[in-house]
């Protein structure tokens, strides 16, 4: 396990270096260590570094959030979307952009996402939240909001709608230091919390009865996990929009790479970071938002892993 983790870290480092030194303006490696000329250092420091950090932190947050959700829901498809977070974030973002023509998109998105998650949790609540009830309510609310989104997109002017759709796919374009400050502050708090919860979540996977017999508070752990999971997804979405698929694929890929059971928060976070920053390298070349590529890369890689293990 340690070997694989180190390998993952190395992959991330390599991608980071490539991200910082290549692009329209190739920059010598020495720049990263303080050498090179001022113009190069500007490019790295003002443009590429914030974008890279955004990719790393958002990827890690999504990977860890996905791992937590999949563990809690005991379902490999578990993602914050079971509580309708992504779709709620999308709906409020669309409303902010296309209906109110405002600019606080990120804030609106997070508010919408959290609000939806709360709504789903409350609606599913009846003497504690049972697994399939949460999923059903989540599906219901998600579909409702999804149709609202489709509707809003048809009502707006086509150019406006198209640029709103860019945000919906998830993008790291033009992310600067001010954009990434929230996640730089929040993730170092939330990620350790998720790691902490990881142990209790491992016990929860044995079933509520066995977990309780071993001294784990089932409902309490579940709630804490959902809160932390939503929190991480929220800061990630505030930074990059609802990036497709990373939260779903990263934990699954991490599990197949490390072959360990349990939520595996750390490997999932590293995999998420690698996936997102790697996809962003291609996104910059192809001038597409990164969300397009995470879907394609993540989907293909997951399919490949499924095929191999069949």
């Amino acid at each position, binding site marked *: 396990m340690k070997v694989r983790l180190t390998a993952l870290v190395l992959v991330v480092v390599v991608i980071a270096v490539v991200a910082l030194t290549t692009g329209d303006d190739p920059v010598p490696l020495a720049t990263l260590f303080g050498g090179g000329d001022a113009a190069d250092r500007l490019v790295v420091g003002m443009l590429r570094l914030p974008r890279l950090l955004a990719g790393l932190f958002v990827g890690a947050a999504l990977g860890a959030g996905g791992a937590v959700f999949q563990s809690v829901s005991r379902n490999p498809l578990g993602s914050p979307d079971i509580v309708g977070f992504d779709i709620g974030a999308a709906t409020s973002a669309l409303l902010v952009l296309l209906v109110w023509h405002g600019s606080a998109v990120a804030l609106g998105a997070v508010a919408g996402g959290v609000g939806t998650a709360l709504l789903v949790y409350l609606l599913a609540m009846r003497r504690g939240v049972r697994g399939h009830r949460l999923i059903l309510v989540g599906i219901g609310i998600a579909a409702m909001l999804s*149709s609202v989104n*489709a509707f809003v997109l048809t009502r707006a002017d086509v150019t406006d709608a198209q640029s709103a759709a860019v945000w919906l796919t998830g993008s790291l374009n033009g992310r600067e230091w001010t954009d990434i400050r929230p996640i730089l502050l929040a993730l170092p708090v939330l990620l350790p919390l998720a790691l902490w919860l990881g142990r209790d979540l491992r016990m929860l996977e044995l079933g509520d009865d066995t977990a309780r017999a071993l001294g784990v508070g089932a409902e309490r752990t579940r709630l804490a996990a959902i809160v932390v999971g939503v929190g991480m997804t929220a800061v990630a979405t505030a930074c990059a929009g609802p990036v497709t698929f990373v939260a779903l694929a990263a934990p699954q890929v991490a599990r197949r790479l490390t072959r360990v059971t349990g939520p595996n928060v750390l490997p999932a976070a590293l995999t998420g970071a690698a996936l997102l920053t790697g996809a962003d390298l291609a996104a910059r070349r192809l001038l597409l938002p990164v969300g397009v590529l995470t879907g394609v890369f*993540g989907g*293909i890689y997951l399919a490949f892993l499924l095929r191999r293990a069949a």
Partner: protein
Amino acid sequence: MRIGGLLVGVGVLVLVALASLAVGAKAIPPATVWHELLRYDGSADGVVIRSLRVPRTLLGLAVGAALGLAGALMQALTRNPLADPGILGVNAGAAAASVAAIGLLGVADPAGYLWFALAGAAIATVLVSALGRSSPARLVLAGAAVSAALGSFVAGLTLVSQNAFDAYRFWAVGTLAGRPLSVLAATGPVLLLGAVLAIALGRPLNVLALGEDTGHALGARPGRTRVLGIVAVTLLCGAATAAVGPIGFVGLAVPHIARLVAGPDQRWLLPYSAVLAAILLLGADILGRVLARPGELQVGIVTAFLGAPILIMLAHRRRLAVR
């Protein structure tokens, strides 16, 4: 008793269909509707009825029934009450193929990219079934992976081509409007084939519900039933989505409601699902026309808003038909 219920259902369906002919931007009284159906006299009302509303109503009937059948089949095949035909990647495949047709090949007319959508749905389903062959958990993951990849393809293409985006955003809502009779003519046979196959699977599905081992022991062939079932779902859902775009909920919620009346016997559950789903879809369409007069609210949106409270109520029922 159950046959009685079914007849009542069909009766309600006929009423709803007639209502669908009568309601719209211009309300036409039922008497006129009846008159025009029997003897076309070229009046303005007659034109509206014959060339707009009849095709629309028929399409709604066909698509509704198809989605209901597909949903019931899917839940029976996976023995999972939360299964929705979309997990096989049908919607994603249809969308990707449609967008490709519009954006890359310049096909503009719904009856044109219809065939692409159907092909796309079929290819996606085959891919997902192949990847997810060994277990239901794998199937679901495979569906998610393929849907994500295709979804990204759609996102990418629509962000690059405004034409494709414009056509896609209207397709993505799921609507019965603007679909000429040619669409029904093209998808009708496919839907019919799927429906016949579905109904024929009634008894094998009953046996499948008892589990693989018991099924084998009773001389059924679970493997074959499953393959045929997936073929039927692909035909039904693929054609329906190709014709009118993705419509959610109907496949997921209706079989649960149908089960309340028909019980778990698939030979009754399937026809009930078809009839109830058709009623739901047409009803939603009518509602959409009424609520947003003189414009209309697309049927895909109305079904979502009708379906969500239903699902939430179902979620709180004490005994859901869980495995």
